[in-house]
């Protein structure tokens, strides 16, 4: 920036801060007294971890299990979305009219639909038809206990396997549409001069992409791509409507049983915040690192 800016705290800052504090106190007061809400943070702990009498250890309970499911969904969902996004991204800039049309239709259809509607359509119409064909259920049920355990850790236990795979594919398709645009924009942002210079040097289209265009495009695609990962973490809450037991689903279940609404949702929100915030910070470091090696 221009010159060194000294951090000054003005009167306006103090006024705003006080207003904020008053606002928070007011809300808490209204909830406690007005809604006659019985705060019970202590009771929450049992839903986070519980003491298993068999193994004599603390094991994760519903909320933590939901968190792990959300993390798995986000991770694999992003990988799927990147695959869809890259393929469709290339389609969108292809010389083939057919490929361009397919890519464009894919993006426009998905982006113009609310995520909730898409999940329902996918689950009830498509997933019901595709899953038996893919044999996902048969695969996991006939797998050895070792394989089942392995998949249980990285994805889901056998009972929940098909539903989780379904949720994954729908998340991948949905977020993939946004990644398609990120990939397309990244490639198209490379100045024409790079294409012209490599063409003049006799490169083939593949050589142009592989050695000149893509290495530069990937640097531009990475930051918005990471932002899309953060988006996906939040969007994964949508699959709770098809009974995939991720974090938000567990939140609704516990709330229905115990009515500890505010404690539960505050905790759930905090967990999402921790996940997305840590990703945001990691992305920031990534961007700084990439800007430095120029």
């Amino acid at each position, binding site marked *: 920036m221009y010159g060194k800016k000294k951090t000054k705290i003005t009167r306006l800052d103090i006024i705003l801060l006080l207003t904020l504090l008053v606002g928070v106190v007011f809300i808490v007061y209204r909830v406690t007294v007005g809604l006659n809400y019985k705060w019970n943070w202590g009771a929450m702990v049992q839903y986070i971890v519980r003491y298993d009498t068999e193994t004599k250890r603390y094991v994760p309970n519903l909320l933590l299990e939901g968190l792990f499911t959300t993390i798995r969904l986000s991770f694999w969902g992003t990988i799927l979305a990147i695959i869809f996004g890259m393929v469709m991204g290339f389609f969108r800039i292809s010389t083939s009219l057919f490929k361009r049309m397919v890519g464009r239709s894919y993006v426009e259809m998905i982006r113009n639909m609310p995520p909730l509607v898409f999940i329902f359509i996918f689950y009830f119409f498509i997933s019901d038809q595709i899953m038996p064909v893919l044999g996902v259920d048969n695969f996991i049920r006939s797998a050895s206990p070792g394989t089942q355990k392995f998949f249980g850790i990285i994805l889901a236990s056998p009972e929940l396997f098909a539903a989780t795979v379904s949720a994954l594919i729908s998340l991948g398709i949905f977020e993939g549409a946004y990644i398609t645009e990120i990939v397309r924009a990244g490639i198209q942002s490379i100045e024409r001069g790079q294409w*012209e210079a490599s*063409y003049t040097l*006799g490169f083939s289209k593949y050589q142009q992409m592989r050695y000149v265009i893509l290495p530069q495009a990937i640097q531009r695609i990475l930051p918005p791509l990471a932002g899309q990962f953060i988006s996906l973490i939040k969007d994964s809450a949508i699959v709770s409507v098809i009974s995939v037991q991720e974090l938000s689903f567990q939140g609704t279940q516990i709330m229905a049983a115990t009515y500890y609404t505010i404690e539960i949702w505050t905790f759930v929100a905090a967990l999402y915040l921790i996940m997305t915030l840590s990703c945001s910070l990691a992305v920031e470091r990534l961007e700084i690192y990439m800007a430095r090696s120029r």
Partner: protein
Amino acid sequence: MQGQTAREFIIEVDKINKEFPGGVRALVDFSTQVRKGEVLVVIGPSGSGKSTFLRCLNGLEEIDSGSIVIDGIPLDDNRKHRLEIRKEVGMVFQLFNLFPHLTVVENINLAQKLVRKKTKEEAAEMTMSLLKKVGIPEKANNYPSHLSGGQQQRVAIARALALMPKVMLFDEATSALDPEMIGEVLDVMKTLAREGMTMVVVTHEMGFAREVSDRVIFMDGGRIVEEGTVEHFFTNPQEERTKLFLSQIL
């Protein structure tokens, strides 16, 4: 097809036409021939079609009609022909167009390996000798962003020369440079000219033209308005448009 007898002309352009969308006629029945070793300088106001003419020579722009033959190879729909021509014709751009994610040597090595199929060692040898030739061997491992404009352009020239082309095209190679750096790039171009490279140079640098060019073409509206030696242009321009243009750049 390509005879073994020495061709008289290495570039043969016959009545080419090019119209851009919107009705702009960039080239109108344009014809010229360039001999091997000739240095042809093309001057003219902006929009005269001189850059378009250059870019048609290696296929960057498509002509609507007419024919172009480079070293006996016709520039047509045959992909092999087009690839051969691109290998034999090197181009230097106004904005350098170096690959920013590669170092200087990597920039110059890449096409040698991919297009001329050279080994790492062969390419490296050629690269270093070219860097010495253009005068910046010490910048070998720098990235383009650490180089001045004049140095970048000299790297661009080396990169084009690395493929050992028969023809070099220069599209306003010094127009984007600060005045103090124009000289170093022109020096490299003059050396090339004196070594016998066939060059087609779009430029405003009449001093350069005076020193090394064999022929100058003045273009306007997609056509050749006047043609001759440099001296002719300096001492005895015929057309009104030529005189007007020269008065503006000299």
